[in-house]
């Protein structure tokens, strides 16, 4: 197959990346948080800054308490960039640092970002984090930094990318093989590490994909759905007392 044909074929494939997070499986263990740090060169900031809203986690596990002792419950919900289709963060950026790419991703172009932090204010999920200082990776911790991902400089907004470097890699491989990306071929770091397999990633435009099937679960809901942001992250409701037989 000639290169041109493969290109055409590749372009014919529609991708719309999405994620399903099954809260009934999620145990709140935090493996995704560290995996994301490692994969995306997310810096750590230390105690003082963490305590003042400057932690850089791209994914965080929110823990909500319900009820009172002894009828108390803790609920975990991993919150990462919801990759909204109607992303409120995008149009407010004056320099197009935040825009929507053709595969439904909410792209953030670090080197265009001037740091108005407008996007962070307009993100209803507050998942955008800002480099308040130059990130520090004391030697030789810097040797761990992934060459596939930029290290962001101070004054720049950043957030979850759905591990776009992995998407790119898989698409390149697929293109060389003259095929579409297979279902399950791409796994963001969080989904890959998740011990209870609570995170499913895939192509929502493909009705045969796992993520598509799970996204139609009756347990589905999306975060603050009434805002109309149309997120690409779909949660499946977790259980509770009511589920015990």
């Amino acid at each position: 197959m000639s290169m041109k044909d493969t290109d055409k074929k590749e372009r014919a494939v529609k991708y719309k990346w999405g994620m399903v997070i099954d809260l009934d499986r999620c145990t709140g263990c935090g493996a995704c948080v560290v995996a994301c740090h490692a994969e995306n060169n997310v810096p750590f900031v230390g105690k003082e800054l963490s305590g003042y809203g400057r932690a850089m986690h791209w994914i965080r596990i929110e823990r909500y308490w319900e009820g009172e002792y002894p009828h108390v419950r803790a609920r975990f919900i991993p919150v990462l960039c919801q990759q909204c289709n109607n992303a409120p963060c995008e149009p407010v950026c004056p320099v197009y640092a935040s825009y929507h790419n053709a595969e439904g991703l909410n792209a953030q172009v670090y080197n265009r970002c001037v740091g108005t932090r407008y996007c962070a204010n307009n993100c209803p999920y507050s998942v955008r984090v800002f480099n308040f200082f130059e990130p520090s990776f004391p030697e030789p911790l810097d040797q761990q930094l992934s060459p596939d991902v930029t290290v962001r400089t101070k004054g720049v907004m950043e957030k979850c990318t759905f591990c776009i470097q992995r998407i790119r890699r898989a698409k390149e491989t697929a293109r060389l093989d003259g095929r579409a990306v297979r279902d399950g071929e791409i796994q963001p770091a969080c989904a890959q590490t998740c011990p209870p397999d609570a995170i499913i990633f895939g192509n929502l435009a493909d009705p045969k994909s796992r993520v598509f099937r799970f996204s139609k679960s009756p347990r589905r809901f999306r975060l603050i759905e009434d805002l109309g942001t149309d997120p690409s992250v779909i949660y499946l409701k977790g259980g509770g007392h009511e589920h015990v037989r």
Partner: protein
Amino acid sequence: MGIKRRKFLQLTGLTAAGTMLSSCGKGTEKLIPFLIPPDDGSIPGVANYFASACRQCPAGCGILVRVAEGRAKKIEGNPLHPVNKGKICARGQAALQDLYHPDRVRQPMKRVGAKGSGEFTPISWDEGLSLLLEQLNDLKKQGHADRLLFMTPRLQGTLSELVWSFMSVYGSPHHLAYEMLNTESYEQANVAVCGRGDVPDYDLEKTQYLLSFGADFLETYLSPVRYGNAFGKMRQSRPTIRGAFTYVGARMSMTAASADRWLPVNVGQEGVLALGMARLILEQGLYSREMVKNVEGNPEVWMKKLSDYDLHSVAERTGLAPEEITSIARDFATIQPSLALVGDSVVFQSNGQDAVQAIQFLNLLVGNVGQPGGLLFCSPPVGQGSTSSFANLLSKVDALERDEFHLALVYRTNPVHGLPSAIRFQEAFKRVPFVVSFSSIMDDTAMHADLILPDHTDLESWGDVVPWVGAHSQVTGILQPVVNPLYDTRSFGDVLLAAARGLDGEGEKVLPYKNYLDMLKQRVQRLIDGSSDTASEKNWVEILQRGGLFEQEEAVLDVPQKKGVSPVPVREPYFEGNKEAYPFHLALFASPVIYDGRNAHLPWLQEMPDPMTTAVWGAWVEINPKTAESLGIKHGDLVMVESTQGSVQVPAVIFPAIRPDTVAIPMGQGHHGMGRYADKVGVNPLGLLAPVMDKEHVLPAWGATRVRLTRISDKGDLTVMGHPEGSYRGELLEI
């Protein structure tokens, strides 16, 4: 994970992986066009995956390490590994920072300042080794070979063999493989009930009703990744079945948070609850008749033995409502397969043995032992070293106090931080004239050493790992160096082999290996075919590419062999400190993030919020809101926690899911040393623990201390990621 990981088996042949990767050098300040590829075959921008094994905790998961340009970039689970199936936990992910920690011991060091001052001077390996040999040989010459104490964690595979051989060659019986979260108690109890002295595997995946008595299997208990994965499947992988999960324990752990139902039982009364349930099951005839036949039991005799455990008194002792007890008893017996787990908060009580036996009896009663979805005792893993007993530890402390040890070698364990001071270990340990540490980081124990001969970190070493559980037969993960050693460190195995060679005596004969790798290869070959040859190069490369030997048999469902089992009454637990002066139980728990403190030096983990409290970078004490209110304590206040043994000052976390008569502190923080990210972060609560024991069985009761709380100030220096009030306002998100 249904798909095959793309080309991770393209793991290039790596016979000498360690020697291949040479691009770690410094001084790449100029951009040099890439014309001639480097000899090692690494291509910039193209990463290689190397299979290895994780040693961050005893679970022994398999990992894949992504290496680009000679540097380790990312750790992922090995999908072929039967224990973790391609998944890996936060601690496993963070092993990268163990490798690249800025405060590693970069070459051998000799103490120059006062003992414990942490002042060292770098020396060469020659000097370091000769210092070690001098000590060893002097002692031996004087005929005091038994004055050598070797401290390690529970060892596995080749290392276990090596240390055992070394000690026997040298002539000292004093190899202490003890760490605080020991499995000894489980093993003893299992012998009593099931006739098997190993740790069973739990078939969570297939179970339909899970009952955990303080077993935090999703965070620290045995094999969290394995059980985490199985838990996910238990909940949602079966089309019409969602496994139910009830947790019994005084504090809601992360695991308990995933339960459908949390029963805050009185501390130390879990065994009573189990027996009460057993009685109800017997009363209602819901027990497994087949199982009773198997163990030749007599339900009527059992009933009689359980006469004290009527619903009313059990409800009173456990502090639970009778309806709750009946409902879980009925569910446990009728929703099959069911499974009861028992964990550290139950075991480490003065009646822990009784409780474990009671709970295992409960499993037995409804037929959960040796059944799919139940407790599996399989053929014991080959190469799992043994652990020392608590009694052994105590006798070692006595010996230390009598100055019976002149030389101590410490490998991969940090007893100065990790043992409760009430057993007097720390004081006694300071009396050892010469301490050699093999730590790759300047941890609390290394600070007290006279000589440090730094080991490689896991990602630079050869080694083998035998998983604790879940290895139904011969599963051995192989560690291989994925990068060149960063510093002038040496593999502990090689150092010990060199030491053995340098001994005056037969060291050479017993340990005739060229090097540690040689020894490892021979062992692997032995595992494959029992021969004593070195593994052939081809086999070896295949094993390395896979990440180890995974010859998984179908789980052998051993039905318990022990006959004449009968329920044993649960003794009343004893607690140190009287109720008036010390009104609260102290529940210490292994941190889901840094376990017992061995991972505290990794900044990713320090910055990863504790799942329940969302606290980062420190320790805290969890207090029920009602209790806190009555003591005038607010979120973040500095609180003094006092026991009969000592006191610590620690910030308060108002924790709605803990019994009002209990407070909890995580283990693992409060290091002195261990690098910049752990040093003096948080407090170490082990100093609070009273030396309570189950005297009958000589087992520790770490959960038997009572404490009191005093508010000191509002400056607790607590950092939580979740807003204290916002954490109660989940309804705003409509989740």
